């Protein structure tokens, strides 16, 4: 069976114990930093920070390989595009293509930025329970005047939670619909165009029915889309403030490299 990408790995490491809001803010800051820095020293420092945090999290490296692997084709494509289509000092000549020194530098920088983004996101999701992440997002969004848009932070958090919880049911429904259509003679390989509506229409009908039943069950359990509390009590501890201070210090140092 395929191991899910960006999945939570339960643990008791210092990174697991941090408040989800701390981790969300840190990942956002490091993401911005990765796209701000231009030099290799800064990028190197970010990789060193990532390895230090990985050691601290006691997470297996496979978690991070799994996060990067699905994007490898895209990463290789942007590297090659930068390498061959950037103006600059030519390194060599292959037929009509001329890789340049500047292209190599740009490609490496861009690819490193993407990989860093994926790695820090994987570090966040592997060390934080998904419901704690949504709870953290909800608490961070709560002060915003979202009611002007006709939604509340509680609704957004519930939507995120349900989307995560309902994905396996959706995949199962796809498989069931495919099996039911195949049993009635549908060949998904021979007739890919003809099979799309045969799969999509019953799937959509089923998903809408599931959504209606879920909405009834939620309403029956008192859900009104308004204020609700959470089992996950979030409170910023000393370790969270220390972590934030260290990261801000790191960012200042890297920006001055």
């Amino acid at each position, binding site marked *: 069976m395929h191991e899910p990408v960006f999945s939570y790995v339960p643990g008791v490491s210092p990174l697991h114990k941090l408040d989800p809001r701390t981790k969300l803010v840190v990942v956002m800051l490091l993401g911005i930093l990765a796209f701000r820095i231009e030099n290799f020293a800064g990028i190197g420092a970010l990789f060193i920070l990532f390895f230090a945090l990985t050691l601290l999290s006691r997470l297996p490296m496979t978690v991070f390989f799994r996060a990067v692997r699905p994007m490898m084709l895209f990463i290789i494509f942007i590297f090659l595009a930068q390498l061959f289509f950037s103006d600059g000092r030519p390194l060599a000549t292959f037929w009509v293509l001329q890789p340049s020194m500047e292209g190599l530098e740009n490609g490496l920088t861009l690819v490193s930025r993407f990989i860093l983004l994926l790695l820090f996101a994987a570090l966040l999701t592997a060390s934080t329970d998904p419901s704690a992440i949504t709870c953290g997002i909800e608490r961070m969004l709560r002060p915003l005047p979202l009611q002007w848009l006709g939604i509340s932070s509680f609704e957004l958090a519930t939507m995120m939670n349900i989307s995560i919880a309902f994905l396996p049911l959706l995949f*199962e429904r796809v498989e069931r619909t495919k099996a039911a259509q195949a049993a009635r003679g549908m060949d998904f390989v021979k007739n890919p165009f003809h099979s799309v509506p045969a799969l999509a229409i019953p799937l959509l009908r089923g998903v809408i029915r599931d959504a209606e039943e879920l909405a009834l069950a939620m309403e029956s359990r*008192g859900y009104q889309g308004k204020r609700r509390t959470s089992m996950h009590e979030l409170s910023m501890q000393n370790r969270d403030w220390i972590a934030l201070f260290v990261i801000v210090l790191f960012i200042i140092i890297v920006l001055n490299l």
Partner: protein
Amino acid sequence: MIRLEKVSYSYPDGTPALENINLAIKKGEFIAIIGKNGSGKSTLALHLNGLLKPQKGKVIIRGMDTRDISKLPGIRKLVGIVFQNPETQFVGRTVEEDLAFGPENLCLPPVEIRKCVDMALAETGFEKYRYRSPKTLSGGQGQFVALAGILAMRPECLVFDEVTSMLDPDSGTDVLERIRKLQRKGKTVVYITHNLEELHAADRIIVMDKGRIVLEGDPESVFADPSLQSLGLTLPSLIELAARLKTCGVAIPWEKTSSPHSFAEEICQLFLKT
């Protein structure tokens, strides 16, 4: 505890689903609502905690009218509904999270929410599944989790809408046994089904047809009513057997028709006497 007064409801296309329903449910009662598909039993269930509002008449739960939106959180805390399909009732990624959903909606503090979750897990004997994904559980286990999700809100009345229809017979029996235990502990139970085999223990049976209550009484009198079969409902096999034996002059007492075991015992006793 629950009172329905002259309740009528039609679907948006104009099809009448409930017509002039009058019903009173007492605290601690086990009421079964039966009827063939389309008779209006599920629509009635949705009226019991304000998921549907009557177009005519009113539904009063402990003095609270379901048409009053401000009373809905209180009504839903008092009356919980367990639906047919466990899969579409799960909101959480783990059993624990799913059970916390109701208490979170009641805006309880985190400590209280944990207490409610622990209590519901203990009540259903599902402590070991706390961190499991509800999607990985079997149908019967899933229905127990759905029940625990409602119990976590500490309701006084539980409505079960055809909860055993998607389960295998053994799981169905387990779920039904748990429901009976809850009723013995003082919960009011409204049990909706079209499987009459499950209703021997009910205090009262309501038979519905075309949105109306057509028959009402204790199981013995309802099952003895000749109009039941004309409503498209099949008698439980043991009760039908007892009725046929009666026509041959062999009387089986009502309480002996509750299980094959007690029925066989009674037959053996009759043989020994003769």
